[in-house]
């Protein structure tokens, strides 16, 4: 977590419990000109959100232990921190109606173009 560079890049909280996937997600965020903030559990993610105010976007995997955890987090964020943008990735089919407003869900495997385009849009 870098706190050194003075020109503040848009910060993206990445929530991912798989370390290998985390590497890819971090790369997407960095390629999008954002600064990744990593959380490997929901609890950690919530703690970060409660303690920091600079998170503009949450980028979360919906496929985490406890199958519905990712979606619950997304709903919680929309509820408690409405301005935060939500990008979700999932290996399962999703129900559009369940997705929090302004949220975007993209499938696995990754479509780098769409992911990075979305992150840039949220950061803008």
């Amino acid at each position, binding site marked *: 977590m870098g706190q050194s560079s003075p020109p503040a890049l848009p910060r993206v909280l990445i929530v991912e419990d*798989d370390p*290998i996937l985390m590497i890819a997600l971090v790369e997407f965020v960095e390629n999008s000109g954002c600064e990744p903030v990593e959380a490997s559990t929901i609890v950690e993610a919530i703690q970060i959100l409660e303690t920091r105010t600079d998170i503009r976007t949450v980028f979360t995997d919906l496929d985490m232990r406890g199958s519905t955890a990712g979606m619950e987090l997304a709903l919680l964020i929309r509820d408690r921190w409405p301005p935060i943008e939500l990008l979700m990735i999932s*290996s*399962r089919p999703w129900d559009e109606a369940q997705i929090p407003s302004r949220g975007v869900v993209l499938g*696995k495997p990754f479509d780098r173009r769409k992911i990075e385009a979305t992150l840039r849009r949220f950061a803008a």
Partner: protein
Amino acid sequence: MTGFVVCAKGTNNLYPMVSSSVPPLVLDPQRLAALDGFDILDTPAEEGFDDLVNLAALACGVPVALVSLVDRDRQWFKARVGFPPCETDLNSSVCKFVLAEPDILQVPDLLADPRTAANPLVTGEPFIRFYAGAPLRTQDGITIGSLCVIDQQPRPEGLTPAQQDALRRAARQVMTQLDMRRAIQQRDALRVDETGAFRAREALRDTQAALAIVDGDLPAALRHVVTGAMRAIPAAEGGVVELLDGAQLVYHTPAGTLAPHAGLRLSLTDSLAGHCATTRTPQRMDDALTNPHVRRDLCDQLKLRSAIAVPVLRGDTVLGVLKLQSSQVAAFTDADLALLGLFAGATTASLAESEARAQTRSQAIYWRGLFDRLSEGFMIGEVVRDTAGQITDWQFVEVNPAWGTLLGLEPATAIGRSVRDVIPGVEEEWISEFAQVVETGEAITFVREVQTLRRWYEGRAFKLDGDRFGTIFLDVTQRVGAELRRNALLQLGDGLRDLTTTADMTRAAAEIVGRTLGATRAGFGRIIGDVEEIDVEPDWTAPGQVSIAGRHRFDAYGDLRTPLRQGEPLAINDVTTDPRTAADPAALQAIGVGALVNMPVRERGRAVAMFIVHDVHPRVWTAEELGFLRNVADRLEAGVARVRAEELQGVLNHELAHRLKNTLAIVQSIASSTLRNVTEREPVEAFERRVLALSRAHDVLMHKSWTAAKMRHVMESVLAMQADMDRFALDGPDLDISPQAALSLSLLLHELATNALKYGALSARTGKVRIAWRTEEGKAPTLVLDWSESGGPAVTPPSNRGGFGSKLIRMGLVGTRVADLRYDPVGLQAEFRAPLADVQVQVH
């Protein structure tokens, strides 16, 4: 008066025959016939004649006057005065001389006349001396005798003219008397004839009436005939019918003088009756003693002298002979014989009629018996019409015992009642169809239910006379029920195969079962706990019945759990009498349950659910119906198991897809971080996107459990990754393609689109790609796929041929390497071919 003495002919020999001269006229046959015609001889004295002889004697002043009729050998006095004998022989006759006289014959002195001088009455007592006789002349001029006056004194002067005139007039009066008498006699004889004819007719009519009611009773018929014939023909002293028996005739029902001889057997050759039977002709016999056909020794025994006999026929055969007899010679006339023939004819007719009647009756009994024994129901109905003549109903005229059995009704109670009355709620078709039969006269065949009886009948209805019709039918409830159940099972099989959720299946099964069994409710419920409660899913109900969907506790409805816990069906025919529910049937009745079946659906031997069938009325659940329900439950069990397995398979498929995609993401991630230090990012991204394209194909395949994919779906899925779909025009049949073909097509299109995006049509804003595919028939049907770009920059063949993408494209569809690439100035034109068999999947 002396005139009342009757003298019998030939009994008085006062006057010995003297063969003196007899005038020839005496024996003139015409004269004698005329005399006989008056039928006067030897009849009693009559006042009319007596008066005339008295007047004649008085007028002529003589003591004796006679009406003397000259017979062939005597003279007989019909009336006389002063002369006691009623006749004399012709020797003593003076009157015989009058026969030749035209007028009065006077003999003044009999002693002096040579014709009479020797007359015994002149020479002896009573010494007559004077005679005057006026001829008794018929209207034909034949003299039959004289009216004479006699004196014992000679009278030379004879009668005065006045006396002669008186004598003539008196003689004419005698003739008038005779004529009158004869007329009266003839009239009386006619009356006798008429009486006889009347009696004969009466007897014949009575006999016919009697024959009409004996009805085939032969002895009775013969007795009536014999007695009737004897009444009609009074001359008969005895009568009999002799029945033919082989070569003999046997006496049946003898009457009168023959009465003692019942059973007498005579040879056909021994009797008049035998002759009659043999010749079949009526016979009249005047004297048995001279008849060649009669055994003499029998005549006395049978008191037989004369007889008449006629044959009695039955059809064409001689049955016997009707005979009447008398002990007198020639007692019968031809008229009697003809009359007897009428009696024989009546007998023949009666026998024929009673035989026909007996045959009819035996036929009627036969048919009636058949009708009664028939296992088919048979009935005769008569339609009922309203005032406009429209048929509105029909009533029972006749039904057979099987009718009662087949309908479960007492036959006697139906007769004369309307069908609507006998079977309340009977279907309209039972009236309209039979009405049509009566109206059109065309027979119909029917298979129809009487729902209130819960029975199906198959039969035929046909018109009888007038407004009547008949039907003959069978109860086909079992057969129809079996058909319905079989069809229901087929229908259920189809339904279960096509339905994909257990809820749909149970609902479909409930409806089929409810309708098939004619129940009022059918449903499916999942058993909770140890058969404590049940969750009833949305059920099927007949109109007017409430749904019982929802949770129910078994104990609230009686003692129902025991069989169900053992996995056994529970069938209750009547909730008010079944020991398990009779104590308090109100709870069941409140939800419209009069009878019920709970058929468990088992899973691994345990009842996990059950099929529920209710009927608002008590009913007997047949073994067939329970078997059907068992079958339904088993099929449902199998169907549910299949759906469960498919659902599970679906879950597994999704989980597998999820893991595959996650793994591909991890592969992407590893590759990306492994190649972190590669400065050229393009190959890395190309790799990522190829993985992505592969994944898209898998996505499409997963929809059909990796067995097949829709070709268009595969294309859209992979192309959408690259550009908006409006840049592409897809044109071709939507084939089901194999997983291999789907993966191959995905990667091929991915590379083509990638190139088009980089260098081809899609690199320009207005460029488009048309993708068309078709199948070509032939020895080996082929799929032909055309990729044609337009609207992009002018293209040239790529300089390097070694890239992975180029290789993929040259591999073509499913590795056939049949790829024709033409770099037209307007854009790339590519054609790929592959055997259809390698691409397509036969989906069943």
